[in-house]
């Protein structure tokens, strides 16, 4: 029986939102994974940005993702970035069903079960008053 991956505990370094990413982090606090869509060309921009990554328009609006997607790539980390992190943890790039990538950790999953193509969904973990982090977990 392999170890079940857990979220990190408070004390890890946390994101510092910017003026244009704040709505993304606000969404996480109420359980929404938000992304930006260009009102001129329709393309999705992620990570949050001040301009569309397809046509460079500034005419972006926020939408809410289904949070469903599949693992694009992964790595199990056994040497922590700093002692604040508990190992092992698994970093994944997930392709959301809407078509954008998000980098996060996967939890509630055996450490040796993560693979490319694995179906996952977002889950949220509060780490401070200001920051709730999106993680992924197995979708089934």
């Amino acid at each position: 029986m392999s170890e079940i991956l857990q979220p990190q505990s408070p004390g890890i370094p946390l994101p510092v939102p910017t003026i244009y990413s704040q709505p993304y982090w606000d969404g996480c606090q109420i359980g929404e994974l938000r992304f930006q869509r260009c009102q001129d060309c329709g393309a999705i921009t992620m990570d949050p940005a001040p301009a569309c990554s397809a046509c460079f328009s500034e005419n972006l609006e926020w939408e809410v993702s289904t949070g469903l997607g599949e693992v694009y790539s992964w790595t199990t980390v056994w040497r922590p970035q700093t002692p604040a992190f508990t190992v092992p943890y698994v970093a994944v790039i997930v392709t959301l069903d809407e078509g954008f990538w998000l980098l996060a950790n996967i939890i509630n999953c055996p450490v040796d079960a993560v693979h490319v193509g694995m179906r996952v969904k977002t889950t949220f973990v509060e780490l401070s008053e200001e920051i709730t982090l999106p993680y992924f977990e197995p979708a089934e």
Partner: protein
Amino acid sequence: MAKHPFHDVAIVGIANSEQARVLEGHDSTTITFQAVHRVLADTGLTPWDIDGVAAGPFSGPLTYYMRNGPAWRNHMAPSIPIILDAASAIATGQCHTVLVAHGSAGIYTERASTAPWTRPANEFVVAYGMFTAAEFALIAQRHMHMHGTTPEQLATVAATIRNNGHAHPDAVYHGRGPFTPDDILASRMVSDPFHLLDCAMTSEGACALILTTRERAQDLPNKPVYILGGACDSFGPSYQHPPAWDLAGPSGRNNGYTGRWAAQKSFAMGELGPTDVDVCEFYDPFSFEIIRQFEAYGFCEEGEGGDFIMDGRIGPGGQFPVTTDGGTMSFSHGGAAVQQLQRVIRGVEQLRGTCVSSQVPDAQVAMCSNGGAGALFTDVMLLGTQTP
């Protein structure tokens, strides 16, 4: 008339300072100054022969303390792009002789954490425990998924480069080997698929180069090494966004093959192709990066890099010897920039024919690189003993 402005520029001086895991009694400034003294000795030039300085944060102090102003300068941490800037400044007549230098000591002291330059804070990666090994692992895992590249192939790269360092008397890990691929696979896992010995190490040190005009180079003691070509591919900031193999814009040119377009431009400038390269001084932050570069630069087809590097092809006496001083895995890895310059220094050393270990016989063309797909950039330079 040269066929490309870079061909009017030669590298006439190279030097490494002492390199060690920890350099007692040094800080970044003093070890950089040691490298500068050594490179001046290598060329026979004085500080007042230098009219350009590209040494990152040391550019100002060097110009001030050498009293060689007024001088051209570049304050960016120097690696291949800055060497090319220096060459451009010389080729366009802004200056005639540029000192390029960088060094690092006393920066990495908190050893329970990964080195500070491997984990820049950014809001979309910081909370997920990312650092360079994990960033590059996400690239390698994608390639392994697409093409079946194996841990044994990665380990073959690491063993080859570490054995070059084992043989080099000035390498930080001189005498630590020899290594077999099984030794690499037996080392502890850091970030799957990278074992400890698939990864760059960390150390301290400095290095320096001097570039000047082709004309001035003829009067200096060393065999001139010419810049045949050079270019840079970037897909964005390092370590801030998901390092996706398929990251691309409308051009379809993807981050997984970053360096391909820089290599194509460099080969065109030098009127060369991959089979003309005698020695591959490729940047080696992680073992997989060597496999990726052979594919990116057109030495082999996409997906075939894992097979390409087997059977001694990249080792001593092979068709394409790589990273012959031991690179960041074994020679030295001083931080953000110094070890990137050291790829070019080793390329020059190979073409001068003065390597004390792993000299490639009669090497005429060297390909040097910096960066990697996990960092969203790759820079390329081609060096030669003659220009087209």
